[in-house]
């Protein structure tokens, strides 16, 4: 099933922040991780991911640094910052509100 574009866009920030909270990562690995966690349901494109990463960086939620990969290539890694962690907590709460509301209404539907 295809997840709608708007929903993908809205969930991008919390997903990225959550992944970076686990460990520092780079673009290609983030896309792979999202694919893995969503059981192949969420396939992000590069054209979507990098602009979001750069925007988060501009907003000082994450920061980037260059580091050598195993193959000896310079790779741009991203690391979550203190403000990013706060933002993640905030987003979590917001998503919980939405999630709870949806869950309740759907439960009522099935109960009635």
């Amino acid at each position, binding site marked *: 099933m295809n997840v709608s574009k708007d929903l993908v866009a809205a969930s991008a920030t919390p997903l990225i922040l959550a992944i970076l909270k686990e460990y520092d990562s780079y673009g290609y690995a983030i896309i792979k991780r999202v694919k893995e966690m969503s059981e192949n349901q969420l396939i992000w494109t590069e054209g979507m991911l*990098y602009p979001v990463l750069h925007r988060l960086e501009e*907003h000082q939620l994450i920061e980037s640094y260059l580091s050598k990969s195993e193959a000896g290539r310079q790779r741009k890694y991203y690391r979550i910052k203190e403000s990013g962690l706060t933002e993640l907590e905030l987003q979590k709460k917001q998503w919980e509100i939405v999630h709870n509301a949806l869950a309740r209404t759907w439960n009522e539907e099935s109960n009635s």
Partner: protein
Amino acid sequence: MFDLETQIHSWSDHLRAHGKLSDADIHELENHLRDEIEDLIAAGLTPDESFLISVKRLGNVDAISHEFAKVNTESLWKHLLVEPIDSLAKQLNRRDIALVVIFALLAGTLFKIPELFGFGLLDQDGEIKIFFIKNLSFFILPFIAAFFLIKRKSELKTWATILGIFILAAVIINVYPSFDPHHTEVLTIVHLPLFLWLVIGAAYIGREWQGSQGRMNFIRFTGEAFIYGVLVMAGVMVLFLFTMVIFQAIQIDIEKFLTEYLLIYGGFAAAMITVYLVEAKKSVVENFAPILAKIFSPLFLIIMVAFLIVMMITGNSPFMEREFLIGFDFMLALVLGLVLYVISARDIRQPANLFDYLNLALIMAALVIDGVALSAILFRLSAFGITPNKLAALGENLALLGNLAGLAWLYIGYFKKKFDFSKLIKWQTDYLYVYFIWTAIVVFIFPIVFRFN
């Protein structure tokens, strides 16, 4: 035979050509492509299959650059004047603007100080005093140098060296006497700004002043600063004329105020603003100097070839007055500028293109014309004796000639695939030393040699 490296390079060049992506973006995407390819190869695909699939997955270049542009356009023009988005850059930008304002005011006020002590700008005949013309560079260039020293967070040692050179130069220039007919003094006036500009180069480049990359950036900066400077100065002149005319309409003559304040402060401010703008825009907007160079290099080539043909048909050899030699110096400098700015915008990895051949043709034509001119001046020089002006013009000619001849030789080697393009860049950036030394000789040694005449 499929060469993966070349394919990846041409892919990223293609991205670069689209212009909307920064180098860092491209680097990141290229890495992404490589990761994808590696994974596919590990899964058992051949390199060419992996490359094709990965490129396809990344999507077409238009779509990518369009997505990126959404982020980048926000910063494109805003970077210039409106506040950048992230707060650190915002603070730095505010500091830079403050520096520009303070330095412009300081430079203007410094220029006015001698007047307080009865040493006015103009002499009895209404001409600007030679002191101000000679020292004009010292009123503004140290501030530009300081601007870059602050921006680059230079160490104390660099500060001391660069300001030391400025002070030393100022002292020497003003201690030197000058006797009629003031030839060496005029030469100093012409060469001093060039010399000091190269000193600013050291401040601009900062720590990497020995690498050709930094010096090339300074050459780019010089070209852009020149173009922006002319535009900003034109704005100041329009403001000047406009103010004068409307006040004249109500019978108030404010020309004195305008020339003594608006022009002086405006001029210094124009210089500082130019430096700030060019520095701020750096890679955000496409450089203008290379575009001008590309437009005019074919035209200059046509004129020069036409000149050569006419000279050969009529048999008229150039009549060697000093003015003409200076004219030929200008021709060489122009050709060098055209060639240089075409090179400056060039991607080193790119294969030779039309403009490289045009460059070589242009250099060759210039060398032939100058060869003819030089033989004439050398004859005259030996017949009529040496004057400082002739020697300076000759020295310039030889310096430029050496520069262009070296470029031509390297170009030919490059076309023959003997070495790669970076060698041309290295030659050109190393050659800055020659100009530095030559201008220093004219400014500081010539007056002594020619007994301050």
